[in-house]
């Protein structure tokens, strides 16, 4: 029998017949799953702020229609913890590391406003976590358009709410993360020893991606590639050696095509202006989730970057989610039980400071 957790889940081709129930085989953590906070949406409707940022624009009419309908369909999953826990039970997820829906970033709004929405979102997530601390840990959102405010909100979330990390996008209003004045933010993340979960929303290269949902299917892995590229070549992973960053969607395009970064480093001055080691040395410091959908790509990620750098995720509860995350990892050929255990929960437990229940 095949378990599914989203309403429109397709039959998967992972070839397994059952999920590993939570706790029974390996401790499991979903590092990539989202919470939507209706109160934050309501703040956007305030006419005083509504025209201050370019609101999210649909790629085309049909895509917009599908996304709006999807949002309605999955709203209980996005908002109701009891629905969420039932889905986790069905999918064999022991702990979700809750991050905000990327629609809550609000980086394009005035910083004060984004700080207010961030506080609302983060307090709400903290409430879900405190309601069931065995099943949830929290990742916060911060107003990245203002480094000081971002640092302050991060500190508040970690110190007061016990959050384990922060979710950020791949750019700040089109500015790359390494060029948005965020040194003190990255330094603070490193100092607090919490994790960054990096998750894109759309892409700044919209023009040629209006159809076929390409802003997501191409745009998301591209955005992560640009972010990873800048973190590596602008020397941020050298400057912040202790930083822990997990990149959504299997890390986007870079982890499966890393040779094109290393090759010119050895030849071209314009590819080593800042860094002192080959780019892959820094890519190796990153973590990637398992949301790649094919067992061959997951296997390639594990073989190339090590099982200790791959972290199980889903993208719950959207249609781009892996609906059977545990079965997916379990069914990937060539992984040892130890590697599976590491990917399913061991790494996340270490990165997010979760104490697995004693077996």
């Amino acid at each position: 029998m095949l378990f599914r957790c989203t309403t429109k889940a397709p039959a998967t081709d992972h070839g397994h017949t059952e999920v590993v129930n939570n706790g029974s085989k390996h401790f499991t953590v979903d590092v990539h799953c989202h919470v939507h906070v209706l109160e934050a949406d309501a703040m956007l409707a305030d006419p005083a702020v509504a025209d201050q940022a370019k609101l999210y624009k649909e790629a085309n009419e049909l895509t917009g229609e599908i996304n709006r309908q999807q949002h309605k369909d999955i709203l209980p999953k996005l908002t109701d913890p009891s629905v969420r826990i039932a889905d986790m039970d069905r999918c064999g997820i022991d702990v979700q590391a809750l991050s905000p829906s990327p629609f809550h970033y609000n980086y394009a709004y005035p910083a004060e406003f984004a700080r207010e929405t961030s506080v609302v979102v983060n307090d709400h997530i903290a409430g879900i976590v405190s309601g069931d601390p065995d099943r949830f840990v929290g990742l916060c959102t911060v107003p990245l358009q203002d480094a000081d405010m971002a640092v302050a909100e991060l500190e508040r979330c970690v110190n007061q709410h016990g959050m384990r990390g922060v979710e950020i996008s791949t750019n700040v209003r089109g500015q790359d993360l390494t060029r948005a004045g965020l040194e003190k933010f990255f330094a603070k993340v490193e100092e607090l020893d919490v994790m960054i979960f990096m998750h894109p929303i759309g892409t700044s290269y919209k023009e040629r991606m209006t159809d076929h949902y390409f802003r997501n299917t191409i745009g998301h892995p591209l955005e992560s590639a640009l972010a990873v590229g800048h973190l590596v070549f602008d020397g941020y992973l050298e400057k912040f050696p202790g930083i822990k960053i997990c990149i959504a969607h299997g890390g986007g395009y870079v982890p499966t095509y890393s040779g094109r970064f290393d090759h010119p480093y050895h030849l071209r001055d314009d590819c080593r202006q800042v860094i002192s080691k080959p780019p892959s040395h820094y890519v190796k410091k990153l973590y990637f989730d398992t949301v790649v959908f094919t067992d061959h790509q997951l296997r390639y990620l594990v073989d190339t970057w090590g099982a200790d750098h791959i972290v199980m995720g889903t993208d719950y509860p959207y249609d781009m989610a892996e609906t059977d995350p545990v079965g997916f990892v379990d069914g990937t050929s060539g992984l040892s039980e130890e590697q599976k255990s590491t990917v399913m929960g061991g790494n996340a437990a270490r990165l997010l400071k979760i104490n697995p229940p004693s077996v």
Partner: protein
Amino acid sequence: MLFKCAHNAPETGSAGHRIQLNDTNVRSVDIHCHLHVPKVDAMVKDVFDVKFEPLINYASDETRSYQQKHVQDIMPMATDVATRIANMDAAGVDVQAVSTAPGHYCYWVEPDLGREVAQTVNNSLAELVNGNPDRFVALGSVPLQDPEMAVSELNRCVDELGMRGVEISTDVCGTELSRAGLDRFFARVEELGVIIFMHPGGFTESARFADHYFSNIIANPLASTVAVHYLIFDGVMDRHPGLKICVAHGGGFMASYSGRIDHAHPLRPDMQRHLPKDKIPTDYLKRFYFDTVVFTDHQLEYLVKVFGADHILMGTDYPYDMAEVDPVGHVNSADLSDSEKAAIIGGNAAKLLSLN
């Protein structure tokens, strides 16, 4: 011993030996190598505008000045036949399937001039091949800005000049290949049974690609990725089941990151306009061919595992610095069977290019 063909080649991690196979009849073929034609630069000099060349337009000052010197440095490799053959010998390449330098596409010029440019390029390619028919075959260039002219020049390339295919870019000045009125062109390519070698010239919108040569190392694989997506989802591959397209640089990002489209397509009607729900996007992806220009043995092994050795062709990107300098050694270093290596090094290309 380690074969190298670029003068500034780094030590590669690959084993570097010429292939040792039982089947000694396999000729090694480089599917991805370029010819520079200085005459063409002169032809378009007066109408050139940097905004048409994203590789340069979006590059930082450092990259621009580096590139200028680099192109000067490699000019003998890019233009001189004797230098080319010496480099092929050094790298263990028996045959080059030569295509134009992507800078010569010139899809942005008026069609009449575009046709002249393509003809000039193609005559130079033909001259190279005629001088050494055992070492070279050619892939022509066509003025994609005018589909009828593109078909005519394709016919001339194949029928009169004996070419084995064409090289095209990933878009026509920002218009997708699937939306540039090229159905007749694709139909003719299919009918002639020749190959398309698809090679990008940067990505059209690239403001965030300025530094660290991202204008090439991210933008080029992105351009190929976008092009392949449109060819699949706009239904070109479905309408032209006989099309044989080899995508440069290991297929860009697409070939090594293919799960996302299969997952999304059955769930989303916005992806099903030209590709009904019961079709599987990667079934079309599997019809493409990819070159070996990925630099790591693990990615090459992965491409072979996912798409089969019969869909991977050895290439270099000669004579640029983004070239694999030891193409045979690279294939040799991968964990593949002898028959897989033979197919990749030359067998597949021999079939696709109708080599004797």
